[in-house]
């Protein structure tokens, strides 16, 4: 096992830990706002670690660039989705007359 493969395994495993944390957060957190943390923080970090791990074994330069491109795109997508959902929930609770800080 070369040093590259070892690093790759290490980073992928830590990415897996973050995904596990994200899933646990999705299931265990009490309300919608806190569940959004699982989406925007834990899973994006997990994806970042897995991308980082795969870069070590990706091979050619174009493939590496594609891999590196995927992470910021996924982050843009999920963070804006988080904003939309949070905005939506906030509007709903405000319309119902429930104040929630």
């Amino acid at each position: 096992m070369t040093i590259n493969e070892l690093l790759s395994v290490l980073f992928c495993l830590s990415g897996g830990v973050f995904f596990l944390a994200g899933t646990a957060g999705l299931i265990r957190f009490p309300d919608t706002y806190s569940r959004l943390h699982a989406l925007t923080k834990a899973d994006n970090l997990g994806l970042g670690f897995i991308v980082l791990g795969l870069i070590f074994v990706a091979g050619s330069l174009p493939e590496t660039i594609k891999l590196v491109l995927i992470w910021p795109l996924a982050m843009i997508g999920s963070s804006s989705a988080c904003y939309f959902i949070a905005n939506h929930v906030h509007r709903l609770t405000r319309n119902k007359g429930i104040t929630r800080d």
Partner: protein
Amino acid sequence: MNLAFDLLVGLSLVWVAWRIVGSRDHFQAVVLFITFGLILSLAWTRLQSPDIAIAEAAVGAGLAGVLFMDALGGLSSSPGSPRPAVPLTLLFPCLILASIMAIAVLFVPEDFLGLIPVVHGALTDTSLEYPVTAVLLDFRAYDTWLELGVLLVAVLGVMGIRRIGSISGSRLPAPADPVGRWIIRILLPIMVLIGGYLLWLGAFAPGGAFQGGVVLAAAGVMLWQAGHPSLGLLPRLWWIVLLFCGFLSFLILAFWSLFHSGRMLAHPENKLWILGVEYAATISIATCLISLVLASPGRCRVRDN
């Protein structure tokens, strides 16, 4: 490990499908259906069909989600039925059907090769290097041609139901807030780029007219979601030209080869012909799918009693 992965994906597909059918809440069923598409694309990946995984990614994650969410918003949100979703009298015939089909699967011979040798033998006759694209655009060009016809019929049907003649007057969603406009400004050029890249890739690697068209369609729908009329900006004539250009280019190719070689849709000698047909088909697929999504929301213009 392969076997474990296959078992897990298969079981989760069946379970998710069962939950989709069994759930009372319609919104829950739609979200589960989006997840179903995701797991299905993992199965396509495992079965070494990257073309289908790409198409499923664009259709399942993008277009189908938008269509069903729109439909949930438009149709009345009546709560699910209080009785059990699946009656028992239906369960037994379906179980029998499933077991008959499963037993039939056992009789598929192990060394069943299908059409692989034929396709690979004929691949030297065509100017395309990637077999799936060669099948789509050359060997089974009739299928692709009529498939474009089906898309056109679907668009005409939707236009007929909505009683509208073009999508230029179709209802716009409320303009997205600054964040929505910002992400669309970032994501849209990348999506158009990927659509073109997939189209270019199709001659020698997984990609091609269908995948490129679906990705471009998703880009158009996303633009529309930001409150921009996207294709609705076009004059009606240009919109019709874009809708029909794929179908018409196949028609022209058919007649051209009929006069030159005596057979309809024979192998064109020149690679430019195939590329032209492929590009026209991509534009038509994208235009048809965008029109289908854009034309559906809102009420009908004329209400008859």
